[in-house]
């Protein structure tokens, strides 16, 4: 699907721009990845004994796949609220630079901060990537409406996927329920691997996978935090050593 040209009358109303944003959900391959991910999260939440309303509320109000998986799997494996909150909080720090880098793309001199609250909430990795792809084709004064439409469309898609995944996990044979649960680690592994732009990110991913089984041997209840901080810090050290070697 092609967006109308920048000077088209289609862009005269914010409402239309919102609608074009919603329609653009259909032209992004990442929507498919998102669908698979949220299908998996729905199944995961079902098998970890959360209610469907809880699952949908987490999608609408958290709106960050990794944070939701961390929340479901830590709470489901008996972590305390504080331990889960810390793990979610660390995973969510990456949203900070994303919001910081996305907002200038749609700000105009007349934009008030409150106009950007919904966009900030909708910002997550999928929207962040798509902003860079779509926004050059959208007139600046309509970008907020367009992104609100795109973001709301993606949330809606995810809520549908969540519900399907949840109900499938409840009613399918064990084989297919297992297949849906497997979507989550696969989709996250490959989308994270694709987003690794720097050496530190790649090392962190590989070491994080390798160190988690070792961290479980400590049986501290904080396994994911321990392996994450250790692996991430080693990866950062590798990045520093290499930066020095180049300089």
């Amino acid at each position, binding site marked *: 699907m092609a967006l109308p040209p920048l000077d088209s009358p289609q862009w005269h109303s914010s409402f239309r721009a919102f609608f074009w944003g919603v329609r653009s959900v259909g032209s992004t391959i990442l929507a498919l990845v998102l669908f698979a991910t949220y299908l998996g999260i729905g199944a*995961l939440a079902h098998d970890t004994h959360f209610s469907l309303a809880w699952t949908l509320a987490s999608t609408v109000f958290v709106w960050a796949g990794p944070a939701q998986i961390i929340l479901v799997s830590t709470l489901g494996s008996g972590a305390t609220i504080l331990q889960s909150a810390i793990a979610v909080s660390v995973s969510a720090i990456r949203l900070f630079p994303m919001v910081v880098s996305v907002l200038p793309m749609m700000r105009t001199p007349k934009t008030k901060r409150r106009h*950007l609250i919904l966009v900030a909430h909708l910002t997550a990795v999928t929207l962040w990537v798509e902003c860079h792809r779509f926004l050059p084709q959208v007139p600046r004064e309509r970008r907020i409406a367009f992104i609100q439409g795109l973001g709301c469309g993606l949330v809606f898609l995810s809520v549908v996927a969540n519900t399907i995944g949840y109900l499938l996990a409840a009613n399918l044979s064990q084989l297919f329920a297992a297949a849906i649960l497997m979507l989550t680690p696969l989709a996250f592994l490959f989308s994270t691997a694709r987003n690794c732009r720097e050496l530190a990110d790649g090392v962190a991913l590989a070491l994080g996978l390798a160190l988690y089984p070792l961290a479980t041997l400590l049986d501290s209840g904080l396994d994911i935090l321990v392996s994450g901080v250790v*692996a991430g810090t080693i990866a950062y050290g590798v990045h520093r050593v290499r930066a020095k070697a180049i300089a």
Partner: protein
Amino acid sequence: MSTFIGDWHALVVLFVAGVIPNQIWRMLGLWFGGGLDEGSELLVWVRAVATAILAGVIAQIVVQPPGALASVPALLRYGAVAAGFAAFMLSRKSIFAGVAIGEVILVGGRWWLG
């Protein structure tokens, strides 16, 4: 309806442990953003730790699987991830190829084992 909502305590936990720790960073980005360099050293470390935490969660689901996934033998789960990763690399980093091959190996292997 009550099975749809579940217990209210869980919804409170969702907000305290999930929504607030997550939204804080977006709202900080909204209020204090602009002055921060995306390539700063602190952010490189933060991103590395966040990536490693996510990797830990991926490993947890595969190593200590929830629910129905536990019915699949461990070696088959690891094999499915490895095959998916090989497909991902061979297809010039196609997420779809990686997920599809991983799933085919998982389902096919489980079916073949009976």
